[in-house]
């Protein structure tokens, strides 16, 4: 049991890296566009399917298929902004929420139409690393390292480039940013493209770990929400830390009890944080 829990702990940390990346995209969109992207996990699912199709159906080599998948998701992000979010920017918050919720229905069923209800996956024989009594799957390790690298690049992008600083400026104070000559429309497109590309990247990291089916995305949407809320909405550092907390907590609970109990635990944390500490773990009470 002790080894199992140790392993669950390590897997939780490793998966936490990918979850951090997942939550980062949702958080970024929320912070900048002030919209809750309800169909975020479903976009990951779509990215997974695209990579699968590029590789398994069209015969593109896997790394190129992943790159194509990321690119397609970025383009899809731009289209989401153009066709869906832009017309709703001035709409009541609830209409935005419901519109993106109906996007869930569309995306899941488009996947159902194209790929059917079967589980699809790309079989990869990746080695398992043994450290003493503990086994680590190299697919998890690669996903973790990759996610950390991408997060590092995003950090540099947001802090060292003009566009990144413009994104942060819009997130902090839209009117002031406009006063400084930043065009929010461009920033929104870039944000949605980056958010879309992130769903593609997360999907690429998931390829060696999971198989995909049309309802694959919903649990990741919820997971991303829980992480974002726990860390404080729009707070990128908070999201990073809480991804590991949630990753470890759910991973250990899943081993000790069951995956449903793990999911229930995550959701209960979500509700409690919303009630008691809506600003999140690291937030400052306004």
């Amino acid at each position, binding site marked *: 049991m002790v080894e199992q829990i140790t392993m669950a702990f390590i897997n939780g940390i490793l998966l936490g890296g990918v979850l951090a990346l997942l939550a980062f995209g949702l958080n970024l969109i929320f912070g900048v566009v002030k919209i*809750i992207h309800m169909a975020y996990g479903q976009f990951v699912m779509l990215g997974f399917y695209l990579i699968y199709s590029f590789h398994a159906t069209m015969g593109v080599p896997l790394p190129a298929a992943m790159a194509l998948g990321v690119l397609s998701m970025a383009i899809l992000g731009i289209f989401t902004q153009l066709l*869906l979010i832009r*017309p*709703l920017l001035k*709409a*009541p*918050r*609830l*209409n*935005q*929420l*419901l*519109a993106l*919720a*109906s*996007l*869930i*229905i*569309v995306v*899941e*069923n*488009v*996947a*159902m*139409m194209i790929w*059917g*209800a079967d589980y699809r996956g790309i079989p990869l024989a990746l080695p398992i690393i043994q450290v003493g009594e503990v086994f680590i799957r190299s697919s998890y390790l690669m996903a973790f390292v990759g996610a950390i690298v991408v997060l590092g690049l995003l950090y540099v992008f947001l802090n060292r480039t003009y566009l990144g600083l413009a994104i942060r400026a819009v997130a902090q104070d839209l009117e002031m940013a406009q006063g400084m000559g930043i065009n929010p429309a461009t920033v929104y497109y870039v944000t949605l493209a980056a958010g879309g590309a992130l769903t593609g990247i997360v999907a690429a990291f998931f390829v060696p770990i999971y198989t995909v089916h*049309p309802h694959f995305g*919903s649990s990741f949407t*919820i997971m991303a*929400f*829980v992480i974002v*809320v726990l860390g404080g909405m729009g707070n990128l550092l908070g999201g990073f830390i809480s991804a590991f907390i949630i990753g470890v907590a759910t991973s250990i609970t899943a081993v000790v009890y*069951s995956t*449903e*109990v793990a*999911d*229930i635990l995550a*959701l*209960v944390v*979500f*509700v409690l944080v*919303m*009630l*008691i500490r*809506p600003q999140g773990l690291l937030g400052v009470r306004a």
Partner: protein
Amino acid sequence: MTATKLTLSGLVLAGILLLPLFFSSQYVIHMVTLMLLWSFVATAWALMARFGIVSLGHGVFLGMGAYIPALLFNFYGLSPWIGMLIGIVAAAVLAVILGYPCFRFKVIGDYFALVTLAVAEVGSLVIVALRDQTGGSLGLTINNSTRPFLDFQFSDKRVYYYLATAFLLLGLYIWRRIDKSKVRLALTAIGESELAASSLGVNVINYKLLVTVISAMLTSMGGVLYAQYVTYINPETVSGVGVSLSVCFKAILGGMFDILGPFVGTSIMVLLEEYIRISLGSKYVGLSEVIFGLALLLLIIFLPKGIVGSITALIQKGYQVERGSK
């Protein structure tokens, strides 16, 4: 205008009441029963949503209504009539447990919506986790009873039809009662500004709880009727995020601020779903839902007031223009 509306509603009601006498087709009766039943649930949802307390988790109340009487009957032989009361009380208790802290800590608007969404997901996860009792995602079939009437089982499907009509009328009656009482005034004021309302002495928490509890109780009644009518339930059809969202979509389509909006929206939606399912469903699995989702998207973007709301606004506008020209 109200006279026209009243006549129209009277005609629709008469049509609904007389329909089973003229149509013996099981299929027509079944479709209208579903229409009435979901209209009732959508009305129950809109009862609170129209005051800005938008729940995306009504599936949890629906699920309690469906599962509690069904489980009590299957395991202990307890009549679903009594089970229904237990289910309604349980839904009311959950509504208070959930609603009180939310309203106390001022979780409003889309934050409230997200909390309720999470609760709906917890509800269906609990049903799946208790798979030894509930059958998990495979669902639960309600046992056949030897005492049909006492155990809420009727061989004549028209009984469910009239029950659904009665439930819907009850929902509409409660809507009217709220409209005519000071509860509506208080809740409208709260919807405009909680701070202003509370500084004028309106007890924000109590009024919000009242309407939430009523809505939850009615929704669980809808769950009971659905389960007893269909006799098979699973977490996807009576709890969880999917059904919760579909209930709000139905109400919003018709217009959640108008008493007949949820009914109109649900009728259109149920018929549309069935039509698309029959004409396209077998060829392309999922296509009907895609069209459905896209229709919803367009509707939310272009007709945010819903069908009844938009028509009413249009008529009022025409009315004003007419009067202005005189």
